[in-house]
């Protein structure tokens, strides 16, 4: 349903963040995009969601199509109304708004306004904690709860394709597991998932296919199983991350102790 072809993107006309990326998100599948910091993952998602301009970035060449139609020239609001909704990196919930108001904000871009109350019931089903905290200011939620709110907020627009930018960032392993299972449920309900992650264990555990980005290019792609078994991925992302991060990243998510040590089999049940 989403096809990215030979995409080149630059920031401020100089920084070439993407240098010819092609990838495919088939209908009702989960696609993972792996890559270390600065690989261009967020840039890819910004391009799909039409928020590049807010970062002074621009598409140099290449195409993105959704159900065969080009997304070029559409603004963020149009993209959401087509059914593509992003959960941004760092959660970006509205901290001063209540949980319920955050969900309401998520529903403002829904193509079908009547579906909102149904969406809210579904979000509260998926995340009972959000129903409990509905009147609280979102800033008071824990990190894991905020991520759930960010996902719930995106679901309020009834996406056909949900794209997530590093949802496991900074979360405890147990919560990461929970997020992974919820993404599987969302996918099972008929929503395609494009999942950008540095946490390859979680991502490959739930994905059908996966791509590895390396400084603006796709360096590897294939089925999630193939990639999980490949030496490169094992070396780079499954347990050896600390040795290859070369200090590019300093936040806690890269901290070995916070990364899930679970094996892939945990995700394939």
């Amino acid at each position: 349903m989403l096809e990215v072809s030979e995409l080149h993107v630059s920031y401020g006309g100089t920084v070439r963040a993407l240098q010819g990326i092609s990838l495919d998100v088939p209908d009702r599948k989960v696609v993972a995009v792996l890559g270390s910091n600065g690989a261009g993952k967020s840039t890819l998602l910004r391009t799909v969601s039409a928020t590049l301009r807010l970062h002074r970035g621009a598409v140099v060449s290449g195409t993105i199509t959704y159900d065969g139609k080009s997304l070029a020239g559409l603004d963020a609001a149009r993209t959401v109304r087509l059914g593509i909704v992003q959960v941004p990196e760092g959660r970006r919930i509205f901290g001063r708004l209540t949980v319920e108001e955050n969900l309401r904000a998520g529903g403002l871009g829904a193509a079908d306004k009547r579906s909102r109350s149904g969406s809210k019931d579904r979000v509260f089903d998926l995340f009972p904690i959000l129903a409990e905290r509905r009147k609280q200011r979102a800033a008071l939620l824990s990190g894991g709860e905020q991520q759930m709110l960010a996902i719930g907020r995106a679901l309020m627009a009834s996406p056909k394709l949900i794209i997530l930018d590093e949802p496991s960032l900074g979360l405890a392993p147990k919560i990461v597991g929970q997020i992974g299972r919820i993404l599987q449920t969302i996918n099972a309900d008929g929503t395609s998932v494009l999942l950008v992650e540095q946490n390859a264990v979680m991502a490959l555990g739930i994905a059908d296919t996966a791509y590895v980005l390396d400084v603006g290019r796709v360096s590897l792609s294939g089925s999630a199983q193939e990639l999980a078994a490949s030496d490169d991925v094992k070396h780079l992302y499954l347990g050896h991350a600390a040795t290859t991060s070369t200090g590019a990243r300093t936040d806690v998510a890269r901290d070995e102790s916070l990364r899930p040590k679970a094996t892939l089999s945990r995700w394939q049940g």
Partner: protein
Amino acid sequence: MTRFIDLVLNGISLGSVYALIALGFVIVFKATEVVNFAQGSMLVLGGYVTTRAHDHMPFVPALLVGIAATAITALIIERVLIRNARGADVNALAILTIGIDILLITELTRRFGSDVLTIGDPWGNKLVHLGNLSLPQARLAAITVAVVLLTGFFAAFKYSSWGVAMRAGAEDNEAAALMGIRRGRVTATAWMVAGLLAAVAVVFLTAFPSPGLDTGAREIALRAFPAAILGGLDSTGGAVVGGLAIGLAEAMTAGYSVTFLGGSLADVIPYLVMLVILLVRPSGIFGTRELSRV
């Protein structure tokens, strides 16, 4: 004591008018991060159009015409100038609004000449007698109208889709865009609401016992600017508190004829109060952003 109560009522009345104008500053700032220095001349424009329309129709329809003209002017400023320059530095945009202000006020001054217009409000110079007190009706009307408008605004801000979109966008513009919220519509509405508030405020700013409407109303309106800043330029509640504080301070110092540096303290009190508050709280009483960002 009567005198004191009289001054307090005057202060609240003046303060609620300042609150309306200050709210206009705040919502435009929240929506676009731009300080709209054209608010003062937009207010004079509203008064001018209402007055001229009143030559042909009763006061209330004339006021509606004045409101519509001001809101549409605000919308044009937003669409043509602010929107097309989106991505430009907010300081540059603020300076742009100074340019608009000068343009508007120059044209209005030409039209006014040396006239002082009466806006034709229904209260005229009638008084209300409460025990020993006698208060201009217009002053009580100002308080009533302000309470109604402010209540309506805060209800919309809290419960309407526009309010949710506005607050979400003010907090995180990019995340709001990712939710499909159209910023353009939110900001256009914010500018129009600011225009509406200005057009209503001018009625009370120039009603009895004020002498009437001339372009000097712009300077008086600009006293709502320190009100907005001391409340916190991004705080709607702060606009109301700031407006009342300035109104009361001004009424008291004028009423007791306090002098300062050889002049009337009432003329400078808005700025003094603002300075004192900013020394203690750089982002205003309820604000979250420091003025250095402006």
